[in-house]
C-alpha cells in the first residue's frame, strides 16, 4: 500500500460510500461517541482554548526547529546503542528495514499500529521477502485478515460492525463463537499471543519521539505496543520526521491533547515509552534497535504555506467531526489519510494528479478547524489547495473558469450587477412554478434542483424597494 489505496474514480467512490448503509451507521455512531467524549474531556480539563494554544505553540516551535531536534534525537538514540536511519523516500525506508529483517533471518515480524508504515507500504515490502507480517492492533489485525485498507487513522476498522468482524474471524481463522465484543477480543488476544511469542522482529510507529532522551512514545488501548517492543530481540521504530517533541514536558502536554481529542479519554490504557538497545550494564531492551525517520515528501512542505499541516498529531478529531466523512466514509478519500487532514496532506505527499477532488470534498463548515487540538487552519488550507488547483495546476473545469470569470465581471461592476437583479427573474420564468419555486432548474441549477427546490428571484429586488422607499420619504418630507 502507499498513500493512495485504490484505482476507482472519485464519483464512484463517493457513491459506493453513500450506498454502504452498514458503514454509515457504524461511522455515524462512532462519531457521536467520539464527539461527546472529546467535548466532555475538554470541559473536564478546563481552559481548553489555552491548552490548544499551548499545543499550537509547541508544534510551531518544534517544526520550525525540526533540523535541530532531529539531530538531537539521532544523537540520543545512538548513545543508547540504537541505529538511526534517515530515509528520504518510502523505497529507502523499506529497503533499510528489509535489510535488517534479512540479516536476522527473520521468519515473522509483528507490528504495532502505524500509519507511516501504511504510507510507505512496508507490509508488502516485508512479505516480498517471504517473511510473515502480523498486525497486532486489533483494528489493524481485522483489516489485515480481510485484506482491506484502514478507513480512519486512529480506529482503522471503524467502518466495520461486530457482525462483520465475527464473519471475518470465522472465515479466516475458524472462529465459531458469537459477535459479543468480549468474546471477539478474547479470541484475537489468544491468536495474537502466539505471534508475539514467535516473532523475530517487532516494528512500531511513533506518536512522539522525545529529542532530548531518544525515547519513543506510543499510545494504545490494547497494550500490544508493549508486547511488540519487549518480546522480539530486534525492534524497529518507523516515524514520520515530524513526530517529534523537544522534551518529556512537551510530550506530556501533547499526549493529553491527543488522547482527549482522539477518543475522549484522559489517558489511554497504555502509554508506552521505549528506545535504544540493551547496553552492557542493562537487563532489558532488545539486542538490536533501529529508528527509521521517514521524510517521503514532508520536508517539501517545510517553509510553505502548508507547514502547519506538519503540526498534526494524528488524533483524528477533524475526521470525527467531519460531516462529509460521516456520509462517505474513509475509503472514499482513496488515501490512507482520510477526512479533512487527509484532504490537506494527501495532495502534498502524493501530488494533485490523483487527488485533485479531495480539497473540494468539504463544505468548508470549519468543524475540523474548530476541533483541531493544535489549531491547524484545515479549512483554510483546503481553500489554498483549490487556489493552487485553479492557478498553478490548471486542473479546474473550463465551465467553472468561465463562470468565475463572469462572476468577477458581474460583481465588480455595479451597473452589470444592477441589471442582473432585474433580469434574473425573467430569465428563469420558464422554470418558475406558480408557488414561486423552481423544481427542475436549467444548467448549473440542475445539480441543486435534482435534490431540493430552488427559490425564484423576487419580482422586485431589495435595492429597487429601498430606492422607492427613499423617494417616497423624500416626497413626504417636502
Amino acid at each position, binding site marked *: 500500500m502507499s498513500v493512495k489505496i485504490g484505482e476507482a474514480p472519485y464519483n464512484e467512490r*463517493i457513491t459506493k460510500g453513500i450506498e454502504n448503509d452498514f458503514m454509515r451507521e457504524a461511522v455515524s455512531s462512532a462519531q457521536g461517541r467520539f464527539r461527546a467524549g472529546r467535548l466532555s474531556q475538554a470541559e473536564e480539563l478546563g481552559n481548553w482554548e489555552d491548552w490548544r494554544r499551548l499545543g499550537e505553540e509547541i508544534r510551531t516551535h518544534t517544526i520550525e526547529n525540526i533540523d535541530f531536534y532531529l539531530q538531537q534525537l539521532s544523537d540520543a538514540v545512538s548513545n543508547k546503542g540504537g541505529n538511526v536511519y534517515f530515509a528520504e523516500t518510502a523505497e529507502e525506508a523499506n529497503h533499510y528495514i528489509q535489510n535488517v529483517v534479512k540479516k536476522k533471518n527473520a521468519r515473522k515480524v509483528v507490528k504495532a499500529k502505524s500509519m507511516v508504515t501504511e504510507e510507505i507500504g512496508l507490509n508488502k515490502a516485508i512479505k516480498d521477502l517471504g517473511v510473515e507480517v502480523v498486525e497486532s492492533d486489533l483494528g489493524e489485525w481485522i483489516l489485515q485478515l480481510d485484506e482491506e485498507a484502514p478507513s480512519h487513522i486512529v480506529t482503522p476498522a471503524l467502518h466495520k460492525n461486530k457482525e462483520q468482524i465475527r464473519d471475518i474471524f470465522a472465515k479466516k481463522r475458524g472462529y465459531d463463537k458469537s459477535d459479543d465484543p468480549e468474546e471477539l477480543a478474547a479470541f484475537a488476544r489468544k491468536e495474537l499471543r502466539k505471534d508475539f511469542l514467535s516473532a523475530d522482529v517487532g516494528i512500531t510507529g511513533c506518536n512522539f519521539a522525545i529529542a532530548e532522551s531518544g525515547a519513543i512514545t506510543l499510545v494504545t488501548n490494547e497494550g500490544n505496543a508493549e508486547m511488540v517492543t519487549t518480546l522480539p530481540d530486534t525492534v524497529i521504530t518507523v516515524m514520520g520526521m515530524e513526530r517529534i517533541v523537544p522534551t518529556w514536558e512537551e510530550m506530556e502536554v501533547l499526549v493529553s491533547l491527543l488522547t482527549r481529542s482522539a477518543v475522549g479519554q484522559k489517558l489511554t490504557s497504555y502509554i508506552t515509552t521505549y528506545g535504544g538497545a540493551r547496553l552492557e550494564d542493562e537487563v532489558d531492551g532488545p539486542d538490536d534497535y533501529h529508528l527509521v525517520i521517514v521524510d517521503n515528501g514532508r520536508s517539501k512542505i517545510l517553509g510553505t504555506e502548508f507547514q502547519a499541516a506538519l503540526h498534526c498529531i494524528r488524533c483524528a478529531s477533524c475526521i470525527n467531526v467531519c460531516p462529509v466523512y460521516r456520509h462517505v466514509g474513509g475509503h472514499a478519500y482513496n488515501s490512507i489519510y482520510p477526512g479533512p487532514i487527509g484532504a490537506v496532506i494527501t495532495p502534498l505527499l502524493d501530488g494533485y494528479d490523483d487527488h485533485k477532488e479531495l480539497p473540494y470534498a468539504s463544505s468548508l*463548515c470549519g*468543524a475540523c478547524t474548530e476541533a483541531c487540538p493544535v489549531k491547524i487552519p484545515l479549512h483554510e488550507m483546503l481553500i489554498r489547495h*483549490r487556489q493552487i488547483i485553479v492557478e498553478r495546476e490548471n486542473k479546474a473545469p473550463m465551465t467553472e473558469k468561465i463562470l468565475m470569470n463572469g462572476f*468577477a465581471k458581474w*460583481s465588480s461592476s455595479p451597473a452589470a450587477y444592477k441589471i442582473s437583479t432585474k433580469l434574473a427573474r425573467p430569465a428563469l420564468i420558464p422554470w418558475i412554478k406558480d408557488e414561486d419555486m423552481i423544481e427542475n432548474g436549467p444548467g448549473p441549477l440542475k445539480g441543486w434542483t*435534482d435534490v431540493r*427546490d430552488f427559490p425564484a428571484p*423576487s419580482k422586485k429586488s*431589495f435595492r429597487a424597494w429601498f430606492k422607492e422607499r427613499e423617494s417616497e420619504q423624500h416626497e413626504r418630507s417636502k
Partner: protein
Amino acid sequence: MKVSLFITCLSDMFFTDVGKNTVEILERAGCAVDFPASQTCCGQPAFNSGYLKEAKQSMKQMMRSFRDSEYVVGPSGSCIGMLKEYPKIFAGDKEWEEDARDLANKSYELTQFLVDVLGITDVGSTFKGRVTYHPSCHMTRILGVKDQPRKLLQNVKGVELIELPVAEDCCGFGGTFSVKNPDISREMVKEKSRHVSETGADYLVGGDMGCLMNIGGRMRREGKQVEVIHITEILNTH
C-alpha cells in the same frame, strides 16, 4: 447612529423581505440606515472555489462601496464573515490593505450588531410558534457569533425555542459545494431535515439565507410542513 446596510446578493435578489425587515429593525433601534447602491457581492463564491483573482475584484468593489460608512451591518453571518477575512487576503497589498482592515473592523452581522454594539437583547417583538434555531457554520465558527441570536430569540414574546439536535452540524450548503458535490450535499441536508423534523417545531429559523435556502428547499421537496425563515422575520413581527 448611522448604519450602512450590506444586503448580500442573495437577499437583494431572492429574499427581499430579509432586507426590508433588517432596515425596519435597525430603524426601530434608533439607527439611520443608508444603502450604498454600488455594493455587489462579498466575493465568497469565487474565493471559496479557489478563484482568488476573481474574488479580489468583487472585494475591491465592496471596499469602494463602504469606504465612507461608519458601520456596515448585514443579515448574514457568512457574508460578514467573508468581509472579516479581507485583511488576511489583502495583507501586504499597499493599495488595499488599509481599506480591508477598515471594512473588516466596522462590519457586523445584524444580531451581533444589535447585541454587542447597541446592547439590545429585546427588540420588543411578538411571534407565536414553536421555533428551532440552526446556528450556521460561518456565523459561529468564522465570525464567532453564537449567543447573540439566541439571546434575541429568547426575548421574543410567544416564541417557544426548541433545541435542534446536533445543531452545529453543517446543512450541506457550502456554496459551490452544493453543486460540485451534489451527492454528499444531499446526504447532509437530508440529515439536517431529519433533525429539524425531530424537534416538532413549526419554524426553522437561522441567520444565513444560503443555509436556509438549502434546508428549506430540501424540506419542501420532502413535502414537510416546517416553515423556514430568517431570524429578521421573527425580530420584526409585532
